[in-house]
């Protein structure tokens, strides 16, 4: 493992990760479409993943990258299940609007 990235390079990576995370967050809150909201959460994942890889490189520690592999695996499984759920929800109401599922309130 050669070529340690310096502080300035790290900052760029971290900025990219934070941007992805923030965009995902905004998308999740702002959009009503369930699939888009789901994709936004995926984007937030990727923001975290970029941060983890950057730190791993910066500290020369592989733990971060191992963790990223885990996250990707689980994200894949989760994506399969969540999309299935979304389809089921769609079948119930014939719409993807999240507002349609606001009956569960106090």
């Amino acid at each position: 493992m050669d070529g340690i990235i310096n502080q300035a390079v790290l900052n760029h990576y971290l900025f990219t990760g934070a941007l992805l995370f923030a965009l995902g967050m905004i998308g999740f809150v702002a959009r009503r479409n369930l699939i888009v909201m789901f994709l936004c959460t995926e984007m937030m994942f990727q923001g975290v993943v970029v941060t983890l890889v950057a730190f791993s490189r910066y500290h020369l520690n592989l733990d971060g990258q191992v963790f990223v592999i885990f996250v990707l695996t689980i994200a894949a499984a989760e994506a399969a299940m969540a999309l299935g759920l979304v389809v089921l929800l769609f079948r119930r109401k014939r719409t993807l609007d999240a507002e349609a599922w606001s009956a569960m309130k106090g």
Partner: protein
Amino acid sequence: MFETAAKAVVTLPFLSMVICAMLAFSKIQKTQRLAAFITAGAIGAAFVFSCLLLKDLPQVEKNGVGAVGTVVHYFDWINIGDFTANFSFYIDGLTAIMLMVVTGVGTLIAVYASWYMDGDVGYGRFFTYISLFIFAMLCLVMGDNLLLLFLGWEGVGAASYLLIGFYYRKPSAVAAAKKAFIVNRVGDFGFALGLMGVFVVFGGIQYVDILPAAKALAEPGMVTNLSETQAAAHAAATDYWGEGKTVSLLLLSIPFLLMLGAFGKSAQLPLHVWLPDAMEGPTPVSALIHAATMVTAGVYMISRLIPIFQLNEAALLTVAVIGCVTALFAGLIALCQYDIKRVWAYSTVSQLGYMFLGVGVLGTTGAVFHLFTHAFFKALLFLTAGTVMHALAGQLDLRKMSGLRTKMPITCWLMFAGCLALAGFPFTSGWYSKDMILVDAMATYPLLGWLGILTALLTAFYTFRLWFKVFWGPTDYEMGNEHHGYEADHHDEDHHHHEPHDPPMWANLPLMVLTLGAVAGGFLGYGFIKNFIGMSSAAVPIDPAHKVAHDAAHAWVPWVASAGAIAMIGLAWVFYVRNRALAENCAKTFKGAVRVLYNKFYVDELYDVIIRRPLRGMGHICHLLFDQMLIDTVLVGGIAKFPRLLAWGARPFQNGALQGYGLSMGAGVAMVLFVLYMVTK
């Protein structure tokens, strides 16, 4: 032998109760019939053992201080430190007489009941209760301490409650049962306090200790050679009432408290209201419990504890006055009742009043003698009334029966014998015993004596009013509409189509034995009872001055009373055989008085106004204040409202909008990060 007999007397009815209960639970109608045989057999055997006790009594009697009974130990019951209350029996003359009455009359009534209750669905249950009653009553009269007396006292109360409410589908029977139980609680409250008072004062509750100790207090110097425990009880009581010391209020109040119990159980004036209503029970029960035995428990208790009552003149005077007033009061009410059993019930209250008058003037012999003879003739009167009721399908109204002499001749003459004894016709049993009380009363308090004679006249009149009305005059009757306390079932009821008739001979046999007792019990029992009371703790020494007054009264009182009684029987004959219209005119003339007497002096109504309604009102207020406001609203309702209140605060946060949750989650994370950043900077 003596000890075995004493134990057997109590054990047999207990076993009979257990077996009958099992038969009753088995619900097999065929085996239910066995219950009557078992009960009658057990009580009969107890009677035989009582006779054995009686026979051996004089030999075991002559020992110890004055007249102290023999103690037969059965088993240890309560032994705590100095306090002893064993399940053991105290047997002396008084116990023996009570045993004869309870088991003797009990056997006869059980035999009669086996006919009377025939066909009743509760046959086995009835005899279970009867056995329970006899067992408890025997504990009451045989117990050697006040606690065992109290156990029996409550036991007979429970049996009485169960039997009054025997026809539990009938609301009036259930109400009467509750009334009897509740009124008796008032008396028992006093009795329990009196019992505790005796324990505090004497340091024990066993008759062998407290009776001689009380005697030694009442007549200092008369009683010597006290045993160790008796001397200890005497010494303990001396602290409350010794020479030169002020008399303790506790010691003086004991007789009054005990008296309250006696008044409750024996239906004396303030607490008499339950007995007439108790006639809702089957007639054999009225005869056995509410005429012959249980209601005399109060008389027994005061006679047994007469040394303690002697310590307080005022208490004795109260007993005498209440007894006398009750006798007159109930006699007056009996004049205007139309229900046969109620006439006999008021008559019982009245006769019990005589007994209390007797013990109140220290004439325990007369009182117990009257208890003895009354058991025979009143049981006879109730059972013959039951026969009439049975024959007329539950009809009890005097106005709806007349001239039954031709239909049921045997019953007619059996009741006649009972009526003669109750009226105090010369040489019948009632004449001997009632006059013994009247003489004692006349010698002590002439006013009470005269009131007693007046009551005797009333007694003769109302007794024969009933007899003449039911059995003489034109034959005319109206059938009732129930059978054994149940509304008659017209589909398979055969009693309605029958003419009124006498019961079969074997069922009449007990009545004939009772008739013998009612007619001949007086002169046969006179010497016997006197002898046995003389050998018991109830014996009261007579001082010479009283003896003179007594003899003077004895010369004329019986003859005046019986002449009056005969005159009254004649008057009843004029009114109810010769010219019934005259009686009706008379009743119309004194309409107001008749109404007051018919309504029993409005005592029930009075209690309703001064006790029941205020209690109800208080209950209502408590219900509003505590139940509804405090418990329902504040406690239960408040606890239920608290989580709702919390939820009301937190509810807006769960608005169902998915993005909202995301935003608040993100904002939360941001806030945590911000705080962390500020802290670590």
